[in-house]
């Protein structure tokens, strides 16, 4: 498990980006729930931590794709592939993330960069 941040330091409605590769975002919803999903939108290179959090849904800051924080599913296009969800554990006021072992759905530009090809 990777420590992210203290729950007290993450106000409701805010997100924390964990700078691992690929990055993961932790969201604290207005209802007080905490979720972790891949930070990179599956459509194009954008940080979902910078997006618009509403209920259990985050809207990509660039092209308005929406993802369900509970399942990672796409709720609105242009994205077509889900983001991964990651297990969240809160212990002694600290948020921990257990990163999924599935393969991430990275957008074409990021995937080619990671593979060493042209960005």
């Amino acid at each position, binding site marked *: 498990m990777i420590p992210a941040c203290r729950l007290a330091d993450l106000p409701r409605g805010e997100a924390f980006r964990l700078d691992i590769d690929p990055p993961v975002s932790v969201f604290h919803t207005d209802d007080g729930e905490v979720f972790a999903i891949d930070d990179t939108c599956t459509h194009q290179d954008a940080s979902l931590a910078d997006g*618009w959090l509403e209920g259990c849904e985050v809207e990509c*800051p*660039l*092209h*308005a794709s929406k993802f369900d924080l509970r399942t990672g599913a*796409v709720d609105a*296009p*242009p994205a*077509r592939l889900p983001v991964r969800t990651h297990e969240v554990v809160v212990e002694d006021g600290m948020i921990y993330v257990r990163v999924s072992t599935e393969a991430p759905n990275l957008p*074409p530009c990021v995937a080619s960069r990671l593979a060493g090809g042209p960005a």
Partner: protein
Amino acid sequence: MVGASLAGLSAARSLRKQGYDGRLVVIGDEPHRPYDRPPLSKEFLAGTIGAADLTLETDDEDLRAEWLLGVRATGLDSAERAVRLADGRAVRADGIVIATGAAARTLPGSEGLAGVHVLRTLDDALALRDALARGGRLVVIGGGFVGAEVASTAYTLGLDVTVVEAAPTALAGPLGETMGHIVSALHADHGVRLLCGVGVKGLGGEHRVDAVLLEDGRSIPADIVVVGVGARPCVEWLEGSGVALDNGVKCGADGRTSLAGVVAVGDCANWYDPRVGAHRRVEHWTGARERPDAAVAALLAWGAVEPGVPRPPYFWSDQYGVKIQFAGHAAGADSVTIEEGAPDDRNVLAVYRRAGRPVAVLGMNQPRLFTRWRKQLAVATS
């Protein structure tokens, strides 16, 4: 559903999501299933993504719709509640969603001249992509967003690019004078010529274009010309149908038209905007995605639901590697202030205000701050 692009697809999805279980017919004049248009002037034109990447439907999606594609709607018979098609067929319906979009305006006299392009559809983009691949001198007529994105893409492909804009400042309409000037300065940053305040008199060339002739007498040599002078709503087919038209289909704040059982969404729809107290036809991607939810609710309940206040209109543009984002209405603002960044760095968050209240926000490479302001704007103006 008359129209099979983003607005039509979104309406079809909304219908199923909101519990409509009956027969659903989607009519589209293009032969393609719904595809995403914004990349047509950017990644698709640059050749970094292909047509398959533009698909809007997901692999496991089943809307249980009948798709009538490649056939144009030619009329709406309000008595029969039927849509007439160009091939002679007619489709009767209990409810009709008009989502016929807009078509690129052309330059009078340019018909039949090779080398002259518009950019609206996938087929337009394919033709332009092939032309740009051959290289040469490109002249873009119109310094709006489509024109600017084409110029930016052509620049990355190594073409010699000139943009001609009739207004004194490009993008002044959507962004206002001050910020229009700052954003359109991206052209000069990259050695793309931007000629403002001069109209186009005509095009030179016999069968193939070889120049753009300006009203001040100059002639700009051209191998390829792109006409990016806006779009007109595709509503000719509704004339005489009883559906009230005024700069597109005239709609209430929930997309209802003057005819019961008929709503309109997307670029062809001129919705009443309660924020500004007037009708506004919005040609943004996000409007075509979001507004069908409200229009479908209105269609299913017809007046039994109170229309909500839509979020402020939002659009984005990518030019020369800079992410440009805008939300709200620039018209009517009495001040613009730079809240973050510096115009010279092309890294700016600017807020437009009217009598001290924020009415619009612009970001250049500021996605995080922009989203914060966009949320504030939705609260401030609702």
